[in-house]
């Protein structure tokens, strides 16, 4: 019988935790974990102690209480008898409205300005440079206040629209610009309006089918078919025809000035000056940043690409649309996400013009009237976090779709 010689096993010594590379990593991690837990414990304890010292508890029950205050712009029905939670929801919708409007407008502006800044036309490119530098280098708050001041100082009061020979008149008899806001007509759905909606949906489907058909044909035969004009015709003609056949089921509710009592407009929709000011300023400001991102993206595409496209006989417009922009998008999208996030969070500057966004309702009046600072601010932070994560999530999916497919 032979006995296999076992290697001598040395007992584990605590010193190895520090000097033995096999264990040192674990030691460092454990210490870091303890420190982190201690820090969190300290912060929580600090919170509990100070809340107790102030005699405050931590409770979200206030959200169910009657709000008692009114809000200027409500996208959903709201009265001062509704709860604080509903007031917060009104604010959230207002924030999302201005952020959505701002993102779309800023993108359009930014892409236009970015492309035009590269224009060979000296005047056009210099004008765009002036736009970008002016908006990028002046704080957003100043732009918001400036636009708001222009809107409320340069427009007439509602009383100016009164009487037979009024000082002010509505644009095309439809839109009234006043120092309170812009009154625009609203759509009234009459009988048979649903048919109109069905026709519109069918038209859109038809236009999409035509687009797919034209593309397939071009890929098969090389012959391009007109897409834009046919799509427009498909959208407009059936709609107009049905509209006339049904006897105009859609009507406009045009705002009219009240002649007695306090001057105000009845009917239509009041687009508050605070919303317009915030929207314009956010779009112009963020648009300037997007313009630079777009310019950088386009310049990142190698010159060889456009030269190759020209050699194939593509015109400059098509070269930009079919060759340059799709490649530039890969560079543009990631920083563009940050701009969307910035715009959404910057919308909280609404406080400067009294726009009722979520910071003004939940983080303003509700917080002040109930004294629930901690709860309100936590909810507010959570809201902006969730919205930002959703925006960047959606944009990341889009980014993955257009990213270079490596096989």
């Amino acid at each position, binding site marked *: 019988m032979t006995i296999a010689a076992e290697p001598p096993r040395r007992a584990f010594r605590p010193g190895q935790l520090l000097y033995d590379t096999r264990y040192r990593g674990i030691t460092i991690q454990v*210490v870091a974990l*303890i*420190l982190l837990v*201690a820090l969190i*414990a*300290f912060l929580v*304890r*600090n919170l509990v*102690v*100070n809340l107790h*010292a*102030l*005699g*405050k508890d931590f409770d979200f029950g206030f959200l169910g209480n009657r709000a*008692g*205050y*009114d*809000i*200027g712009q409500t996208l959903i029905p709201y009265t*001062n*008898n509704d709860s604080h939670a509903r007031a917060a929801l009104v604010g959230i919708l207002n924030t999302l409205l201005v952020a959505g409007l701002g993102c779309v407008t800023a993108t359009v502006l930014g892409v236009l300005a970015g492309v035009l800044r590269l224009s060979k036309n000296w005047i056009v490119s210099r004008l765009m440079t002036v736009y970008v530098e002016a908006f990028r280098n002046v704080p957003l708050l100043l732009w918001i206040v400036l636009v708001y001041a222009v809107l*409320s*100082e340069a427009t007439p*009061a509602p009383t100016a629209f009164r009487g037979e020979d009024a000082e002010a008149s509505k644009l095309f008899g439809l839109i009234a610009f006043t*120092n*309170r806001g812009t009154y625009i007509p609203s759509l009234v759905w009459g009988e048979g309006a649903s048919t109109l909606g069905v026709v519109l949906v069918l038209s859109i489907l038809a236009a999409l089918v035509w687009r797919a058909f034209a593309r397939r044909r071009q890929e098969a035969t090389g012959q391009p078919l007109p897409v834009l004009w046919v799509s427009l015709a498909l959208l407009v003609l059936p709609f107009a025809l049905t509209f006339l056949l049904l006897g105009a089921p859609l009507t406009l509710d045009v705002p009219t000035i*009240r002649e007695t*009592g*306090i001057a*105000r407009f009845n009917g239509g929709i*009041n687009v508050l*000056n605070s919303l317009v000011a915030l929207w314009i300023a956010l779009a112009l400001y963020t648009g300037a940043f997007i313009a630079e991102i777009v310019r950088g993206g386009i310049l990142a595409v190698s010159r060889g690409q456009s030269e190759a496209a020209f050699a194939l006989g593509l015109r400059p417009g098509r070269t930009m649309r079919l060759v340059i922009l799709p490649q530039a998008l890969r560079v543009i999208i990631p920083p563009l996400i940050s701009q969307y996030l910035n715009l959404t969070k910057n919308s909280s500057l609404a*406080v400067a013009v*009294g726009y*009722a966004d979520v910071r*003004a309702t939940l983080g*303003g*009046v509700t917080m*002040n*009237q*109930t*004294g629930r*600072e901690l709860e309100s601010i936590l909810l507010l932070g959570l809201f902006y976090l969730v919205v930002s994560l959703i925006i960047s999530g959606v944009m990341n999916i889009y980014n993955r779709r257009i990213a270079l497919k490596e096989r």
Partner: protein
Amino acid sequence: MKKSVLLGTLTLAGLAGVAQAATLDDVRGRDALNCGVNPGLTGFAAPDASGKWQGFDVDFCRAVAAATLGDPEKVNYIPLSGETRFTALAAGEVDVLARNSTWTYSRDTDLNLDFPAVNYYDGQGFLVPRALGVTSAKELDGATVCIQTGTTTELNLADFFRVNGITYEPVPIANDAEGRQQYLAGACDTYTTDASGLASVRTTFETPDDHIILPEIISKEPLGPAVRHGDNDWADIVRWTFNALVAAEELGVTSANVAEMAAAPTENPEINRLLGTEGEFGAMMGLEPQWAVQAIQAGGNYGEIFERNLGEATPIGLARGLNAQWTQGGLLYTPPFR
């Protein structure tokens, strides 16, 4: 290792807890009173042309500083908007909030504030241009209303229009300066806040006579200084400083004669107790025996402060009304100094 972390944590947590110590010690340690005031409401609190704070609430801050520190100039004025004032007070940023704040049930209990005194009995009114052709607040149907956000007036306004079955559009603003600018620019038909505030704002217009304050007073607004709940000694100091100013008016003690009256005991024992020439009344609050003398010297008694900042001789021109002494048909009635 773990032990020392724990100890460190406890030390830090302990330090955070100490911040809630006695306010009077904080004030003395700092050698200055942090007083939260309105960022700009002529007559109540506003910096004058030379940058010196002036007004009814400012004079109260000076009186408290004089009573506690012996010098009315040792005040740091911290302008606060309607929305931030209570948070600033709760966070310890100010020692006393003299910012025409209304004493209400929920502020007293739920917000954990204490209102040691009412220094001005007010009510909410409406300011309109004469050209609007409105003579009663009930005719304001459809009006656009400028309203300071985060105030009781915001809630009163909602209640008033609801009760009367009329509608309005609120235009939220942050402070009186913005309200004035929006109102004059015509961004709102009417501006609503406490009637005293309206009178004060109106004096700053180029043509005050083109604007009227509607007769309806739609709420009770007992305005007063506020302190944090829980430091009763400090609340006592604020309360009795105010009471001393009211008692001084009632007893005929003014800024002109207070030094003379305090020099030697007078015939009136109540004056003697107030001015520290009899008994140990200052020591009961942990203050100098001369605390009330210093408070009265800072800006005079309640009547003098009122007349100088808001009274009929000033552009604001408010009558004493409810804010007269109880002997004159008003509501000012101080408990006895005994």
